[in-house]
Protein backbone atom coordinates (compact mmCIF):
# COMPACT_ATOMS: atom_id res chain seq x y z
CA UNK A 1 0.00 0.00 0.00
CA UNK A 2 1.31 3.43 -0.85
CA UNK A 3 2.50 5.65 1.94
CA UNK A 4 -0.28 7.77 3.42
CA UNK A 5 -0.67 11.01 1.53
CA UNK A 6 0.53 14.11 3.19
CA UNK A 7 -1.10 17.09 1.63
CA UNK A 8 0.60 20.23 2.75
CA UNK A 9 -2.29 22.59 3.01
CA UNK A 10 -1.38 26.07 4.09
CA UNK A 11 -2.16 25.79 7.77
CA UNK A 12 -5.17 28.09 7.56
CA UNK A 13 -8.29 26.82 9.30
CA UNK A 14 -11.17 26.78 6.85
CA UNK A 15 -13.82 25.20 9.03
CA UNK A 16 -14.13 25.70 12.77
CA UNK A 17 -16.51 23.38 14.57
CA UNK A 18 -17.03 24.42 18.17
CA UNK A 19 -18.98 22.50 20.82
CA UNK A 20 -21.61 21.28 18.39
CA UNK A 21 -24.30 19.31 20.17
CA UNK A 22 -27.31 17.62 18.59
CA UNK A 23 -29.97 15.77 20.52
CA UNK A 24 -32.86 13.69 19.26
CA UNK A 25 -35.24 13.41 22.17
CA UNK A 26 -33.27 11.61 24.84
CA UNK A 27 -30.43 10.60 22.57
CA UNK A 28 -27.41 12.85 22.25
CA UNK A 29 -26.13 12.07 18.77
CA UNK A 30 -23.37 14.66 18.72
CA UNK A 31 -21.86 15.73 22.03
CA UNK A 32 -19.87 18.98 22.18
CA UNK A 33 -17.70 18.09 19.22
CA UNK A 34 -14.97 20.55 18.28
CA UNK A 35 -12.29 20.43 15.65
CA UNK A 36 -10.79 22.40 12.81
CA UNK A 37 -10.38 21.50 9.18
CA UNK A 38 -7.42 23.09 7.52
CA UNK A 39 -7.52 24.45 4.02
CA UNK A 40 -6.09 22.20 1.34
CA UNK A 41 -6.23 19.03 3.42
CA UNK A 42 -8.27 15.86 3.54
CA UNK A 43 -9.77 15.11 6.92
CA UNK A 44 -11.47 11.82 7.71
CA UNK A 45 -14.16 11.38 10.34
CA UNK A 46 -14.31 7.82 11.53
CA UNK A 47 -15.90 5.92 14.34
CA UNK A 48 -18.03 2.89 15.10
CA UNK A 49 -21.58 2.75 13.78
CA UNK A 50 -23.87 5.21 15.44
CA UNK A 51 -21.02 7.48 16.44
CA UNK A 52 -22.84 10.51 15.07
CA UNK A 53 -20.83 11.07 11.92
CA UNK A 54 -23.68 11.64 9.49
CA UNK A 55 -25.55 13.70 12.04
CA UNK A 56 -22.51 15.91 12.32
CA UNK A 57 -22.61 16.45 8.57
CA UNK A 58 -26.27 17.35 8.83
CA UNK A 59 -25.53 20.03 11.38
CA UNK A 60 -22.74 21.46 9.25
CA UNK A 61 -24.94 21.81 6.21
CA UNK A 62 -28.23 23.01 7.62
CA UNK A 63 -30.24 19.77 7.50
CA UNK A 64 -30.33 19.51 11.27
CA UNK A 65 -30.16 22.36 13.72
CA UNK A 66 -27.79 21.70 16.62
CA UNK A 67 -28.92 22.45 20.14
CA UNK A 68 -25.63 24.17 20.85
CA UNK A 69 -22.36 25.08 19.22
CA UNK A 70 -21.12 27.01 16.26
CA UNK A 71 -19.71 26.16 12.87
CA UNK A 72 -17.81 28.79 10.96
CA UNK A 73 -16.53 28.53 7.44
CA UNK A 74 -14.55 31.37 5.98
CA UNK A 75 -15.63 33.52 8.89
CA UNK A 76 -19.33 32.87 8.27
CA UNK A 77 -21.60 31.07 10.69
CA UNK A 78 -23.24 28.00 9.19
CA UNK A 79 -25.54 27.08 12.07
CA UNK A 80 -29.07 28.23 11.44
CA UNK A 81 -28.67 28.46 7.70
CA UNK A 82 -30.78 26.64 5.18
CA UNK A 83 -29.05 23.84 3.25
CA UNK A 84 -29.07 25.78 0.01
CA UNK A 85 -27.37 28.74 1.68
CA UNK A 86 -24.52 26.56 2.85
CA UNK A 87 -24.02 25.48 -0.74
CA UNK A 88 -23.89 29.10 -1.85
CA UNK A 89 -21.31 29.82 0.86
CA UNK A 90 -19.16 27.04 -0.55
CA UNK A 91 -19.91 23.94 1.50
CA UNK A 92 -21.09 20.97 -0.58
CA UNK A 93 -22.00 17.50 0.60
CA UNK A 94 -23.03 14.04 -0.47
CA UNK A 95 -25.46 11.76 1.35
CA UNK A 96 -25.09 8.35 2.89
CA UNK A 97 -28.33 7.46 1.12
CA UNK A 98 -27.47 8.79 -2.32
CA UNK A 99 -29.85 11.49 -3.47
CA UNK A 100 -29.61 11.50 -7.24
CA UNK A 101 -32.30 12.71 -9.62
CA UNK A 102 -33.34 9.41 -11.10
CA UNK A 103 -35.05 10.73 -14.20
CA UNK A 104 -31.99 12.73 -15.26
CA UNK A 105 -28.81 11.36 -16.78
CA UNK A 106 -25.53 11.43 -14.89
CA UNK A 107 -24.44 14.48 -16.87
CA UNK A 108 -27.72 16.25 -16.22
CA UNK A 109 -27.45 15.51 -12.51
CA UNK A 110 -24.06 17.18 -12.44
CA UNK A 111 -25.32 20.08 -14.57
CA UNK A 112 -27.79 20.95 -11.84
CA UNK A 113 -24.85 21.44 -9.52
CA UNK A 114 -22.93 23.41 -12.14
CA UNK A 115 -25.67 25.99 -12.23
CA UNK A 116 -25.99 26.37 -8.46
CA UNK A 117 -24.64 29.90 -8.41
CA UNK A 118 -26.36 31.02 -11.59
CA UNK A 119 -29.06 33.59 -11.37
CA UNK A 120 -32.52 32.34 -12.04
CA UNK A 121 -32.89 32.61 -15.78
CA UNK A 122 -36.48 31.33 -15.92
CA UNK A 123 -37.51 34.04 -18.35
CA UNK A 124 -34.33 33.69 -20.39
CA UNK A 125 -34.98 29.98 -20.77
CA UNK A 126 -38.62 30.51 -21.75
CA UNK A 127 -37.59 32.81 -24.52
CA UNK A 128 -34.63 30.69 -25.53
CA UNK A 129 -32.28 33.65 -25.20
CA UNK A 130 -28.68 33.09 -26.29
CA UNK A 131 -27.48 33.67 -22.73
CA UNK A 132 -29.51 30.71 -21.56
CA UNK A 133 -28.22 28.49 -24.33
CA UNK A 134 -24.65 29.51 -23.59
CA UNK A 135 -25.01 28.78 -19.88
CA UNK A 136 -26.39 25.35 -20.67
CA UNK A 137 -23.51 24.60 -23.07
CA UNK A 138 -20.99 25.65 -20.43
CA UNK A 139 -22.73 23.55 -17.80
CA UNK A 140 -22.72 20.51 -20.06
CA UNK A 141 -19.00 20.94 -20.77
CA UNK A 142 -18.24 21.37 -17.09
CA UNK A 143 -20.28 18.30 -16.21
CA UNK A 144 -18.32 16.26 -18.72
CA UNK A 145 -15.08 17.55 -17.31
CA UNK A 146 -16.02 16.61 -13.75
CA UNK A 147 -17.19 13.14 -14.69
CA UNK A 148 -13.91 12.66 -16.56
CA UNK A 149 -11.99 13.88 -13.51
CA UNK A 150 -13.61 11.16 -11.45
CA UNK A 151 -13.14 8.62 -14.20
CA UNK A 152 -16.77 7.81 -14.89
CA UNK A 153 -17.38 9.65 -18.15
CA UNK A 154 -18.68 6.46 -19.78
CA UNK A 155 -21.87 6.93 -17.75
CA UNK A 156 -22.44 10.49 -19.02
CA UNK A 157 -25.75 9.86 -20.76
CA UNK A 158 -27.05 7.04 -18.62
CA UNK A 159 -30.21 7.82 -16.68
CA UNK A 160 -29.44 7.85 -12.99
CA UNK A 161 -31.88 5.06 -12.18
CA UNK A 162 -29.79 2.75 -14.39
CA UNK A 163 -26.49 3.45 -12.65
CA UNK A 164 -24.81 0.86 -10.43
CA UNK A 165 -24.69 1.76 -6.73
CA UNK A 166 -21.01 2.66 -6.54
CA UNK A 167 -21.21 4.85 -9.63
CA UNK A 168 -24.22 6.66 -8.15
CA UNK A 169 -22.11 7.80 -5.23
CA UNK A 170 -19.42 9.04 -7.58
CA UNK A 171 -21.94 10.96 -9.68
CA UNK A 172 -23.24 12.57 -6.53
CA UNK A 173 -19.68 13.55 -5.66
CA UNK A 174 -19.28 15.07 -9.13
CA UNK A 175 -22.49 16.98 -8.63
CA UNK A 176 -21.29 18.31 -5.30
CA UNK A 177 -18.00 19.36 -6.87
CA UNK A 178 -19.94 21.10 -9.61
CA UNK A 179 -21.17 23.65 -7.09
CA UNK A 180 -17.60 24.93 -6.87
CA UNK A 181 -17.24 24.40 -3.13
CA UNK A 182 -14.37 25.47 -0.89
CA UNK A 183 -15.25 22.54 1.34
CA UNK A 184 -16.51 19.13 0.20
CA UNK A 185 -18.17 16.81 2.71
CA UNK A 186 -18.38 13.20 1.54
CA UNK A 187 -20.56 10.70 3.39
CA UNK A 188 -19.16 7.22 2.75
CA UNK A 189 -18.06 7.74 -0.85
CA UNK A 190 -16.45 4.32 -1.04
CA UNK A 191 -19.52 2.30 -0.12
CA UNK A 192 -20.24 -0.17 -2.89
CA UNK A 193 -16.92 0.32 -4.69
CA UNK A 194 -14.60 -2.51 -5.67
CA UNK A 195 -10.96 -2.53 -4.54
CA UNK A 196 -9.85 -1.13 -7.86
CA UNK A 197 -12.50 1.57 -7.80
CA UNK A 198 -11.50 2.50 -4.25
CA UNK A 199 -7.93 3.01 -5.44
CA UNK A 200 -9.25 5.26 -8.17
CA UNK A 201 -11.23 7.15 -5.56
CA UNK A 202 -8.08 7.79 -3.51
CA UNK A 203 -6.39 9.32 -6.52
CA UNK A 204 -9.52 11.33 -7.33
CA UNK A 205 -9.69 12.72 -3.81
CA UNK A 206 -6.04 13.71 -4.00
CA UNK A 207 -6.67 15.44 -7.32
CA UNK A 208 -9.65 17.23 -5.79
CA UNK A 209 -7.60 18.38 -2.83
CA UNK A 210 -4.70 19.46 -5.01
CA UNK A 211 -7.20 21.40 -7.08
CA UNK A 212 -7.92 23.57 -4.05
CA UNK A 213 -10.96 21.91 -2.48
CA UNK A 214 -10.73 20.95 1.17
CA UNK A 215 -12.29 17.56 1.81
CA UNK A 216 -13.91 15.99 4.85
CA UNK A 217 -14.72 12.32 4.48
CA UNK A 218 -16.85 10.07 6.64
CA UNK A 219 -15.72 6.54 5.90
CA UNK A 220 -15.66 2.99 7.17
CA UNK A 221 -13.07 1.74 4.71
CA UNK A 222 -9.93 1.94 6.85
CA UNK A 223 -7.58 1.30 3.96
CA UNK A 224 -8.93 4.30 2.13
CA UNK A 225 -8.89 6.42 5.26
CA UNK A 226 -5.30 5.62 6.14
CA UNK A 227 -4.11 6.15 2.60
CA UNK A 228 -5.83 9.41 1.76
CA UNK A 229 -6.24 11.40 4.97
CA UNK A 230 -3.97 14.14 6.17
CA UNK A 231 -5.74 14.08 9.51
CA UNK A 232 -8.32 11.90 11.21
CA UNK A 233 -10.99 12.68 13.79
CA UNK A 234 -12.47 9.77 15.71
CA UNK A 235 -15.98 9.92 17.13
CA UNK A 236 -17.52 7.42 19.48
CA UNK A 237 -21.07 7.73 20.77
CA UNK A 238 -21.21 11.36 19.76
CA UNK A 239 -17.95 12.44 21.39
CA UNK A 240 -14.58 13.14 19.87
CA UNK A 241 -12.10 10.69 21.32
CA UNK A 242 -9.04 11.29 19.19
CA UNK A 243 -7.63 13.56 16.51
CA UNK A 244 -4.39 13.50 14.65
CA UNK A 245 -2.44 12.14 11.68
CA UNK A 246 -3.22 8.58 10.56
CA UNK A 247 -0.13 6.94 12.06
CA UNK A 248 -0.97 8.38 15.45
CA UNK A 249 -4.61 7.36 15.32
CA UNK A 250 -3.68 3.83 14.33
CA UNK A 251 -1.88 3.36 17.62
CA UNK A 252 -4.27 5.32 19.86
CA UNK A 253 -5.56 2.98 22.60
CA UNK A 254 -8.84 4.83 23.00
CA UNK A 255 -9.57 4.39 19.30
CA UNK A 256 -8.68 0.72 19.37
CA UNK A 257 -10.92 0.21 22.39
CA UNK A 258 -13.84 1.96 20.75
CA UNK A 259 -13.61 -0.22 17.67
CA UNK A 260 -13.02 -3.45 19.54
CA UNK A 261 -16.12 -2.69 21.52
CA UNK A 262 -18.24 -3.05 18.39
CA UNK A 263 -18.64 -6.07 16.20
CA UNK A 264 -17.91 -4.51 12.85
CA UNK A 265 -17.74 -6.26 9.53
CA UNK A 266 -16.69 -3.30 7.40
CA UNK A 267 -14.00 -3.51 4.79
Amino acid at each position, binding site marked *: MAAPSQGGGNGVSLLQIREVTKRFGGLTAVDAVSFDVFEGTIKAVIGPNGAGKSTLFNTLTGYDRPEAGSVRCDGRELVGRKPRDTVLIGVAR*TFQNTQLFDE*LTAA*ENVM*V*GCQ*AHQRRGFAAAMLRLPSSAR*EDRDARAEAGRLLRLIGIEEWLDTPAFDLPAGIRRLVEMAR*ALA*TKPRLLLLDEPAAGLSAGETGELVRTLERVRDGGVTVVVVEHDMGLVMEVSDEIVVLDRGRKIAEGPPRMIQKDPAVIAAYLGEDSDDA
Partner: protein
Amino acid sequence: MGRTLRALAVLVAAVLVACVPLVVTSPFYLQIYTFAGLNALVVVGLALLFGYAGQISLGHAAFVGIGAYTCAYCTVTLHLPWLVAIVAAGALSGAGGLILALPSLRLKGHYLAMATLGFGQLMSLVFVEAVGVTGGVNGRGGIPFPSLGPVVLRSAASLFWLVWAFVAVAVIVAYNLTSARPGRAMRAVHGSELGAQASGVDIVSVKVRTFVLSALLAGLSGALYAGVVGFVSPSSFTLTTSIGFVAMTVLGGSGSLTGPLAAAVLLTFVQYLDSLIPGLPQAAASKLQTYQQDIYGLAIVLVVVLAPRGLAGAWRRRRKGVGTA
Protein backbone atom coordinates in the same frame (compact mmCIF):
# COMPACT_ATOMS: atom_id res chain seq x y z
CA MET B 1 -35.56 9.91 -31.84
CA GLY B 2 -32.81 12.09 -33.25
CA ARG B 3 -33.31 15.77 -32.70
CA THR B 4 -33.98 16.56 -36.35
CA LEU B 5 -36.39 13.67 -36.68
CA ARG B 6 -38.25 14.81 -33.61
CA ALA B 7 -38.38 18.40 -34.80
CA LEU B 8 -39.70 17.17 -38.12
CA ALA B 9 -42.37 15.08 -36.43
CA VAL B 10 -43.47 18.09 -34.40
CA LEU B 11 -43.60 20.25 -37.51
CA VAL B 12 -45.67 17.69 -39.36
CA ALA B 13 -48.05 17.39 -36.42
CA ALA B 14 -48.38 21.18 -36.27
CA VAL B 15 -49.17 21.38 -39.97
CA LEU B 16 -51.72 18.58 -39.66
CA VAL B 17 -53.43 20.32 -36.78
CA ALA B 18 -53.46 23.60 -38.68
CA CYS B 19 -55.10 21.88 -41.63
CA VAL B 20 -57.94 20.40 -39.62
CA PRO B 21 -60.42 23.24 -40.28
CA LEU B 22 -59.70 22.95 -43.96
CA VAL B 23 -60.78 19.33 -43.94
CA VAL B 24 -63.46 19.38 -41.29
CA THR B 25 -66.12 21.86 -42.21
CA SER B 26 -68.79 21.03 -39.67
CA PRO B 27 -68.70 23.71 -36.95
CA PHE B 28 -70.03 21.16 -34.51
CA TYR B 29 -67.05 18.85 -34.87
CA LEU B 30 -64.65 21.77 -35.08
CA GLN B 31 -65.85 23.00 -31.73
CA ILE B 32 -65.09 19.62 -30.16
CA TYR B 33 -61.59 19.81 -31.55
CA THR B 34 -61.37 23.34 -30.20
CA PHE B 35 -62.36 22.06 -26.77
CA ALA B 36 -59.58 19.53 -27.10
CA GLY B 37 -57.23 22.46 -27.58
CA LEU B 38 -58.64 24.25 -24.53
CA ASN B 39 -58.01 21.18 -22.40
CA ALA B 40 -54.57 20.74 -23.93
CA LEU B 41 -53.66 24.29 -22.95
CA VAL B 42 -54.45 23.57 -19.31
CA VAL B 43 -52.72 20.22 -19.43
CA VAL B 44 -49.46 21.65 -20.78
CA GLY B 45 -49.21 23.67 -17.59
CA LEU B 46 -50.16 20.69 -15.46
CA ALA B 47 -47.61 18.56 -17.27
CA LEU B 48 -44.93 20.95 -16.10
CA LEU B 49 -46.30 21.10 -12.59
CA PHE B 50 -46.99 17.40 -12.10
CA GLY B 51 -45.03 15.60 -14.76
CA TYR B 52 -41.83 17.53 -14.27
CA ALA B 53 -41.90 19.14 -10.85
CA GLY B 54 -43.97 16.42 -9.23
CA GLN B 55 -46.55 18.67 -7.57
CA ILE B 56 -50.22 17.71 -7.40
CA SER B 57 -52.98 20.21 -8.03
CA LEU B 58 -56.56 19.13 -7.50
CA GLY B 59 -58.11 22.51 -8.09
CA HIS B 60 -56.92 23.73 -11.46
CA ALA B 61 -60.48 24.16 -12.70
CA ALA B 62 -60.60 27.11 -10.31
CA PHE B 63 -57.96 28.93 -12.32
CA VAL B 64 -59.77 28.15 -15.54
CA GLY B 65 -62.87 29.61 -13.94
CA ILE B 66 -61.05 32.70 -12.74
CA GLY B 67 -59.81 33.30 -16.26
CA ALA B 68 -63.22 32.68 -17.76
CA TYR B 69 -65.12 34.93 -15.37
CA THR B 70 -62.48 37.65 -15.62
CA CYS B 71 -62.82 37.63 -19.37
CA ALA B 72 -66.59 37.66 -19.10
CA TYR B 73 -66.59 40.51 -16.60
CA CYS B 74 -64.13 42.58 -18.61
CA THR B 75 -65.97 42.22 -21.87
CA VAL B 76 -69.61 42.14 -20.81
CA THR B 77 -69.62 44.45 -17.79
CA LEU B 78 -66.63 46.69 -18.38
CA HIS B 79 -66.84 46.66 -22.17
CA LEU B 80 -63.10 46.34 -22.47
CA PRO B 81 -61.52 45.06 -25.67
CA TRP B 82 -60.93 41.34 -25.80
CA LEU B 83 -57.16 41.64 -25.79
CA VAL B 84 -57.29 43.50 -22.50
CA ALA B 85 -59.69 40.91 -21.14
CA ILE B 86 -57.45 38.00 -21.90
CA VAL B 87 -54.40 39.70 -20.44
CA ALA B 88 -56.42 40.46 -17.31
CA ALA B 89 -57.57 36.84 -17.19
CA GLY B 90 -54.03 35.56 -17.33
CA ALA B 91 -52.83 38.09 -14.79
CA LEU B 92 -55.56 37.32 -12.29
CA SER B 93 -55.26 33.59 -12.51
CA GLY B 94 -51.49 33.86 -12.29
CA ALA B 95 -51.86 36.06 -9.23
CA GLY B 96 -54.29 33.57 -7.74
CA GLY B 97 -51.75 30.87 -8.34
CA LEU B 98 -49.07 32.92 -6.60
CA ILE B 99 -51.25 33.60 -3.58
CA LEU B 100 -52.06 29.93 -3.26
CA ALA B 101 -48.60 28.64 -4.02
CA LEU B 102 -46.45 30.79 -1.75
CA PRO B 103 -47.81 29.53 1.56
CA SER B 104 -48.52 25.98 0.41
CA LEU B 105 -45.24 25.16 -1.22
CA ARG B 106 -43.26 25.69 1.94
CA LEU B 107 -44.84 22.45 3.09
CA LYS B 108 -44.67 18.87 1.95
CA GLY B 109 -46.35 17.63 -1.19
CA HIS B 110 -49.63 16.41 0.15
CA TYR B 111 -50.33 19.78 1.69
CA LEU B 112 -50.34 21.36 -1.74
CA ALA B 113 -52.76 18.71 -2.92
CA MET B 114 -55.11 19.58 -0.07
CA ALA B 115 -54.63 23.31 -0.44
CA THR B 116 -55.50 23.15 -4.12
CA LEU B 117 -58.49 20.96 -3.35
CA GLY B 118 -59.71 23.43 -0.76
CA PHE B 119 -59.04 26.36 -3.06
CA GLY B 120 -60.87 24.71 -5.92
CA GLN B 121 -63.91 23.99 -3.76
CA LEU B 122 -63.81 27.50 -2.34
CA MET B 123 -63.75 29.07 -5.79
CA SER B 124 -66.64 26.84 -6.82
CA LEU B 125 -68.57 28.33 -3.95
CA VAL B 126 -67.51 31.84 -4.85
CA PHE B 127 -68.55 31.34 -8.48
CA VAL B 128 -72.00 30.40 -7.27
CA GLU B 129 -72.39 32.99 -4.53
CA ALA B 130 -70.79 36.11 -6.02
CA VAL B 131 -73.85 36.72 -8.10
CA GLY B 132 -72.97 40.31 -8.91
CA VAL B 133 -69.77 39.41 -10.67
CA THR B 134 -70.41 35.89 -11.85
CA GLY B 135 -74.13 35.77 -12.37
CA GLY B 136 -74.42 33.01 -9.82
CA VAL B 137 -75.79 29.61 -10.68
CA ASN B 138 -77.25 30.90 -13.90
CA GLY B 139 -73.87 32.01 -15.12
CA ARG B 140 -73.07 34.82 -17.43
CA GLY B 141 -73.84 34.92 -21.11
CA GLY B 142 -73.49 37.25 -23.99
CA ILE B 143 -69.73 37.07 -24.00
CA PRO B 144 -68.52 38.46 -27.31
CA PHE B 145 -66.35 36.57 -29.72
CA PRO B 146 -62.61 37.10 -29.37
CA SER B 147 -61.37 40.04 -31.35
CA LEU B 148 -57.85 41.00 -32.25
CA GLY B 149 -58.24 44.70 -32.73
CA PRO B 150 -60.87 45.23 -35.40
CA VAL B 151 -60.88 41.57 -36.48
CA VAL B 152 -63.62 39.55 -34.84
CA LEU B 153 -63.15 35.80 -34.82
CA ARG B 154 -66.58 34.37 -35.38
CA SER B 155 -66.14 31.29 -37.48
CA ALA B 156 -65.53 27.89 -35.97
CA ALA B 157 -62.33 27.63 -37.99
CA SER B 158 -60.88 30.91 -36.74
CA LEU B 159 -61.68 29.97 -33.14
CA PHE B 160 -60.01 26.61 -33.66
CA TRP B 161 -56.89 28.32 -34.99
CA LEU B 162 -56.87 30.87 -32.19
CA VAL B 163 -57.03 28.24 -29.46
CA TRP B 164 -54.47 25.95 -31.05
CA ALA B 165 -52.16 28.91 -31.67
CA PHE B 166 -52.21 29.46 -27.92
CA VAL B 167 -51.48 25.77 -27.41
CA ALA B 168 -48.57 25.98 -29.83
CA VAL B 169 -47.04 28.93 -28.02
CA ALA B 170 -47.55 27.23 -24.67
CA VAL B 171 -45.87 24.07 -25.92
CA ILE B 172 -42.94 26.05 -27.27
CA VAL B 173 -42.50 27.93 -24.01
CA ALA B 174 -42.82 24.72 -22.02
CA TYR B 175 -40.35 22.96 -24.23
CA ASN B 176 -37.86 25.79 -23.87
CA LEU B 177 -38.17 25.50 -20.13
CA THR B 178 -37.86 21.75 -19.92
CA SER B 179 -34.86 21.53 -22.24
CA ALA B 180 -32.92 24.05 -20.18
CA ARG B 181 -32.03 24.69 -16.59
CA PRO B 182 -35.58 25.23 -15.24
CA GLY B 183 -36.62 21.82 -16.57
CA ARG B 184 -33.70 20.13 -14.87
CA ALA B 185 -34.43 22.03 -11.70
CA MET B 186 -38.07 20.88 -11.81
CA ARG B 187 -37.06 17.28 -12.27
CA ALA B 188 -34.45 17.65 -9.56
CA VAL B 189 -37.11 18.86 -7.14
CA HIS B 190 -39.28 15.91 -8.14
CA GLY B 191 -36.44 13.41 -7.94
CA SER B 192 -35.01 14.36 -4.57
CA GLU B 193 -35.68 17.55 -2.66
CA LEU B 194 -32.74 16.79 -0.39
CA GLY B 195 -30.43 16.37 -3.34
CA ALA B 196 -31.83 19.45 -5.03
CA GLN B 197 -31.13 21.57 -1.98
CA ALA B 198 -27.63 20.14 -1.81
CA SER B 199 -27.12 21.14 -5.42
CA GLY B 200 -28.06 24.75 -4.87
CA VAL B 201 -31.60 24.58 -6.25
CA ASP B 202 -34.09 26.99 -4.69
CA ILE B 203 -36.83 24.45 -4.27
CA VAL B 204 -39.62 26.76 -3.23
CA SER B 205 -38.88 29.17 -6.07
CA VAL B 206 -38.96 26.40 -8.66
CA LYS B 207 -42.25 25.05 -7.39
CA VAL B 208 -43.89 28.46 -7.11
CA ARG B 209 -42.83 29.57 -10.57
CA THR B 210 -44.04 26.35 -12.11
CA PHE B 211 -47.32 26.58 -10.26
CA VAL B 212 -47.91 30.19 -11.30
CA LEU B 213 -47.17 29.36 -14.92
CA SER B 214 -49.61 26.47 -14.84
CA ALA B 215 -52.25 28.69 -13.23
CA LEU B 216 -51.68 31.31 -15.89
CA LEU B 217 -52.11 28.82 -18.73
CA ALA B 218 -55.29 27.54 -17.11
CA GLY B 219 -56.59 31.10 -16.85
CA LEU B 220 -55.85 31.76 -20.51
CA SER B 221 -57.70 28.60 -21.40
CA GLY B 222 -60.66 29.82 -19.37
CA ALA B 223 -60.70 33.18 -21.12
CA LEU B 224 -60.58 31.49 -24.51
CA TYR B 225 -63.35 29.14 -23.43
CA ALA B 226 -65.51 32.13 -22.52
CA GLY B 227 -64.95 33.62 -25.96
CA VAL B 228 -65.55 30.38 -27.80
CA VAL B 229 -68.72 29.37 -26.01
CA GLY B 230 -70.05 32.83 -25.15
CA PHE B 231 -71.38 31.63 -21.82
CA VAL B 232 -69.84 30.61 -18.50
CA SER B 233 -71.39 28.99 -15.48
CA PRO B 234 -70.06 27.44 -12.28
CA SER B 235 -70.84 23.93 -13.46
CA SER B 236 -67.89 24.07 -15.84
CA PHE B 237 -65.34 24.57 -13.09
CA THR B 238 -65.92 21.81 -10.57
CA LEU B 239 -63.84 19.21 -8.77
CA THR B 240 -64.82 16.78 -11.50
CA THR B 241 -63.27 19.12 -14.05
CA SER B 242 -60.08 19.35 -12.02
CA ILE B 243 -59.86 15.59 -11.68
CA GLY B 244 -60.35 15.32 -15.43
CA PHE B 245 -57.29 17.49 -15.96
CA VAL B 246 -55.35 15.35 -13.51
CA ALA B 247 -56.40 12.21 -15.35
CA MET B 248 -55.18 13.66 -18.65
CA THR B 249 -51.85 14.62 -17.12
CA VAL B 250 -51.33 11.30 -15.38
CA LEU B 251 -52.29 9.32 -18.45
CA GLY B 252 -49.92 11.35 -20.57
CA GLY B 253 -47.05 10.51 -18.32
CA SER B 254 -44.37 12.38 -16.45
CA GLY B 255 -41.34 13.96 -18.00
CA SER B 256 -43.11 14.58 -21.28
CA LEU B 257 -45.13 17.29 -23.00
CA THR B 258 -46.45 15.38 -25.99
CA GLY B 259 -47.86 12.58 -23.85
CA PRO B 260 -50.17 14.76 -21.76
CA LEU B 261 -51.11 16.75 -24.83
CA ALA B 262 -52.14 13.60 -26.67
CA ALA B 263 -53.96 12.37 -23.57
CA ALA B 264 -55.84 15.65 -23.32
CA VAL B 265 -57.05 15.34 -26.89
CA LEU B 266 -57.88 11.68 -26.44
CA LEU B 267 -59.87 12.16 -23.26
CA THR B 268 -61.69 15.13 -24.73
CA PHE B 269 -62.81 12.88 -27.57
CA VAL B 270 -63.96 10.35 -25.00
CA GLN B 271 -65.91 13.13 -23.35
CA TYR B 272 -67.72 13.80 -26.58
CA LEU B 273 -67.72 10.24 -27.85
CA ASP B 274 -71.46 10.22 -28.07
CA SER B 275 -71.31 13.23 -30.37
CA LEU B 276 -68.38 11.97 -32.37
CA ILE B 277 -69.91 8.65 -33.31
CA PRO B 278 -72.59 9.52 -35.83
CA GLY B 279 -75.80 7.61 -35.67
CA LEU B 280 -75.40 6.55 -32.08
CA PRO B 281 -78.80 5.97 -30.48
CA GLN B 282 -79.68 8.34 -27.68
CA ALA B 283 -79.88 5.62 -25.05
CA ALA B 284 -76.39 4.40 -25.77
CA ALA B 285 -75.11 7.96 -25.86
CA SER B 286 -76.36 8.83 -22.39
CA LYS B 287 -75.08 5.51 -21.09
CA LEU B 288 -71.68 6.38 -22.44
CA GLN B 289 -71.80 9.72 -20.66
CA THR B 290 -72.15 8.06 -17.28
CA TYR B 291 -69.02 6.03 -17.89
CA GLN B 292 -66.88 9.06 -18.60
CA GLN B 293 -65.87 9.49 -14.99
CA ASP B 294 -65.06 5.81 -14.71
CA ILE B 295 -62.51 6.26 -17.43
CA TYR B 296 -60.90 9.12 -15.55
CA GLY B 297 -60.74 7.16 -12.35
CA LEU B 298 -59.52 4.03 -14.03
CA ALA B 299 -56.92 5.91 -16.02
CA ILE B 300 -55.49 7.42 -12.87
CA VAL B 301 -55.43 4.20 -10.89
CA LEU B 302 -54.06 2.05 -13.67
CA VAL B 303 -51.36 4.47 -14.68
CA VAL B 304 -50.19 5.17 -11.16
CA VAL B 305 -50.06 1.49 -10.26
CA LEU B 306 -48.89 -0.10 -13.48
CA ALA B 307 -47.10 2.51 -15.52
CA PRO B 308 -46.07 5.50 -13.50
CA ARG B 309 -44.50 7.07 -16.53
CA GLY B 310 -47.79 6.97 -18.42
CA LEU B 311 -48.14 6.93 -22.18
CA ALA B 312 -44.86 8.74 -22.58
CA GLY B 313 -43.05 6.10 -20.55
CA ALA B 314 -44.50 3.28 -22.58
CA TRP B 315 -43.38 5.01 -25.75
CA ARG B 316 -39.87 5.51 -24.40
CA ARG B 317 -39.62 1.92 -23.34
CA ARG B 318 -40.35 0.76 -26.88
CA ARG B 319 -37.23 2.48 -28.10
CA LYS B 320 -35.13 1.24 -25.17
CA GLY B 321 -31.45 0.99 -25.79
CA VAL B 322 -30.83 4.34 -27.38
CA GLY B 323 -30.59 6.58 -24.39
CA THR B 324 -31.77 10.07 -25.01
CA ALA B 325 -32.74 12.43 -22.20
